[in-house]
């Protein structure tokens, strides 16, 4: 009876670990917020942005003008924390937790959009049927910089292409149509945009059936691990089995 109890306890522990590992992180809900207000946005803009971008987005002292940045660009820059800019001048804007809350971002986006004529926040639909064309588009246009698995890469000249692992679909689409920083613009037809965003989302959530992805940076580290860890483990097992046989076989 004691043995059975111990066995059941072991099963429970193993099962519990398995369940805990398969849980997905919860997603934040969008609350009932107001649409962006240009007036509130203007006040936030004056306080946080006008020093560099100018009172009406014209750009002060060589900082970039944002008159025609549009909703999409403002939304991208604020939501990914790239703005407000917090580096030495000339460095690539860093991805950070956003400095503004959801309502403030909406207000600022509304204000920036009112300055001039820029792209609106795009609408994208994830469609699994577009995975294959999405992969083709990604391979020829995105993979050169962001890597085949979307884990980012070096661009030379001190610049990097960011990993796409933290980029939700709308952020990817906004980046494509606005070309932030060093990134060129990929202002594509809606279906191509949907296909690419779908594929990036697939890359982010792709299962890793082998266990560790080892950074997802390509076959070389995977091969190294297979050879030096896997083969070494096999060799050790072979050695141990053979040694044991020797020790007892002699006597027989």
């Amino acid at each position, binding site marked *: 009876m004691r043995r059975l109890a111990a*066995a059941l306890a*072991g*099963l429970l522990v*193993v*099962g519990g*670990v*398995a*369940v805990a*590992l*398969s849980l997905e992180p919860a997603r934040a809900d969008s609350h009932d917020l107001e649409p962006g207000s240009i007036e509130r946005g203007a006040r936030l803009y004056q306080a946080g942005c006008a020093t560099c971008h100018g009172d009406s987005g014209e750009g002060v002292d060589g900082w970039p003008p944002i008159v025609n940045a549009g909703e999409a660009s403002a939304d991208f820059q604020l939501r990914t924390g790239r703005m407000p800019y917090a580096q030495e001048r000339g460095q690539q804007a860093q991805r950070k937790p956003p400095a503004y809350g959801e309502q403030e971002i909406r207000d600022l986006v509304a204000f920036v959009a009112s300055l001039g004529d820029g792209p609106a926040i795009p609408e994208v639909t994830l469609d699994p049927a577009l995975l294959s064309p999405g992969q*083709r588009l990604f391979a*020829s*246009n995105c*993979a*050169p*910089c962001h890597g085949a698995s979307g884990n980012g*890469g070096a*661009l*030379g*000249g001190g*610049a990097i*292409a960011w990993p796409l692992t933290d980029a939700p679909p709308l952020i990817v689409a906004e980046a494509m149509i606005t*070309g932030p*920083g*060093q*990134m*060129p*613009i*990929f*202002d594509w037809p809606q279906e*191509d945009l949907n296909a690419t965003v779908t594929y990036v989302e697939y890359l982010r959530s792709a*299962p*890793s*059936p*082998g*266990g560790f992805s080892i950074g997802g940076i390509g076959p070389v580290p995977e091969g190294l691990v297979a050879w030096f860890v896997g083969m070494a483990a096999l060799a050790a097992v072979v050695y141990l*089995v053979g040694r*044991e*046989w020797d020790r*007892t*076989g002699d006597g*027989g």
Partner: protein
Amino acid sequence: MTAERLIAASLVVSALASLALVVVFFVGGHPQIEGILLALALGGLGAGIVIWSIRLLNAPIQVEERHPLASPEQTRNDAASTVDMRSITRRTLLVRLLLGAVGALAAALAIPALALGPGPGRELFQTPWRAGSRIVGDDGLPIRPDDLAIGSVRTVFPEDAIGSPEAVTLLIKVRPSELRLDAQRMSWAPEGCVGYSKICTHAGCPVGLYRAEEHALLCPCHQSTFDVLRGAVPTFGPAARPLPQLPIDVDADGFLVARGDFPEPVGPSFWNLTHTETDG
């Protein structure tokens, strides 16, 4: 620990792991944990059987002697008599073998010379781009200058050779006022749509990385960097000559077309690169 206990422990571990495998499968499955459990199940079973056979079974090593490999005397004599060795003396045999070896070596040295020809002719100087070829994306659709926003990059091909590795071209739209091309090449970039061969002039890798702020094309293989505004002259890295520029025009329907082939050979440089009038 006694052998019995060791075997029992292995088999119990194996059984528990197998049961846990079933449980994990039914609660949703998790590849890594399932893998570990499967390893424990099979490993426990294997360890149990191995220990059982080594410790409990009295299994001395028996060696069975092989029977003699040679055929009986009579068979060997019969075989030897069917081959008449007397017509070939030892000396003739060795001389013939020597001649054969030298001849084979001569052939082995001579055959690679065939690889020196035929000459590639004009092949290295030509790509599928022709005067009037519509410029299309990999979706096969023609492109108007207005389809591209300033700062856009597209990989393009001639309409009749989509996917051609020689013809692959990067179409980049920049502000026309920023372009610093040679005077006669300014007209090759209508509305700032400038096209360059995507094949690096150093080692032939695709020059696929673009730093939009500096208008710099970067080759991922050896970091050759090309200035898009100044005719793709190399500004860094081992590439020695600019990426060839595709002469671009706009046709009557408003689509981008090539005015002709690249003015220079695309891809890595080669020894008679500048002999454009000779035949290879």
